[in-house]
């Protein structure tokens, strides 16, 4: 290394800027999905239509709370990683991963149950409902793959690059948790 320059306190690595921008664009995509759902709701007299049961409320809310609680775990992992504590970081990511996988498993169960009751091809409501949930679940799955990657890499020890990667995951999970809250509020809104 030819010149000794130290990042000033509080400067964000380039990778964090990149994930922030990914969150911005994915957030815009989420905004479009929710706006489309709301727009379609203004076009019909009943939402959901008579053939479709009202959305459940309790289970989605509890699951959202679960997902939100995993975000601080990954954030704490990031904090430990930046202080060089590999084992603590690994453990926190592992616990978060288990809870997030459980969240996704439960969501897939309810998704499947919904599909057995009404089809996404039956109404605009159903199309919007399943697409909104499906998009969120796809983001959770991507996050789980990121967790697995981190768990693998952290087994080999900590480097500044891997510490940044854990921080990227923390930012991502904050976004996905927020996305979960917004998606939940949107899909349960007809029942409120």
């Amino acid at each position, binding site marked *: 290394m030819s010149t000794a320059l130290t990042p000033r306190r509080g400067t964000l690595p380039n990778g964090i800027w990149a994930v922030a921008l990914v969150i911005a664009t994915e957030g815009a995509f989420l905004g479009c999905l929710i706006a489309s759902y709301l727009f379609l709701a203004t076009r*019909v*007299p009943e939402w959901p239509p008579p053939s479709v049961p009202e959305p459940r409320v309790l289970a989605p809310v509890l699951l959202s709370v679960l997902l939100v609680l995993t975000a601080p775990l990954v954030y704490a992992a990031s904090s430990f990683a930046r202080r060089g504590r590999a084992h603590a970081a690994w453990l926190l990511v592992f616990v978060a991963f288990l809870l997030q996988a459980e969240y996704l498993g439960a969501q897939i169960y309810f998704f499947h149950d919904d599909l057995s009751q009404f089809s996404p091809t039956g109404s605009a409501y159903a199309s919007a409902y399943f697409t909104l949930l499906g998009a969120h679940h796809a983001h959770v799955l991507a996050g789980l793959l990121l967790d697995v990657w981190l768990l693998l890499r952290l087994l080999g020890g900590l480097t500044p690059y891997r510490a940044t990667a854990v921080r990227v995951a923390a930012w991502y999970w904050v976004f996905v948790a927020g996305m979960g809250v917004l998606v939940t509020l949107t899909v349960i809104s007809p029942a409120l």
Partner: protein
Amino acid sequence: MRVDPTGLAGKILSWYGLLGAPFAWTIFHVGGVGIATGACSPFGLRSGGDLQPASLALGFGTLAVAVGGLGAALVVYVSTRGVDEEGAPPLGRIHFLSVVGLTIAPLFIAIILMAGLGGTALGCEQG
């Protein structure tokens, strides 16, 4: 009124002066279009609200924020008067951004006023 542009108050005013009016317009536009779309849809606002009061409240509220942004940009501009816009940071950068804020705020205020006033005269009739 002058502030230390590099102090906490100066920094807050600097960012408010730059971003206040655009932010206000964004809320006005998204909220206004949303209210109008909902109210003028075949089935009306599901919340039971009324178009005009909601639009007026939104208009006045965001207008206040935008005007505040203009004021903040003016304070920072006055506080950095004499600094070259291409000058060394931080003062050069702060003065540059205050010029930007002073220029853009009136434009956003104009949009809010035009659309807000238009909204008081118009309704859900098809164009």
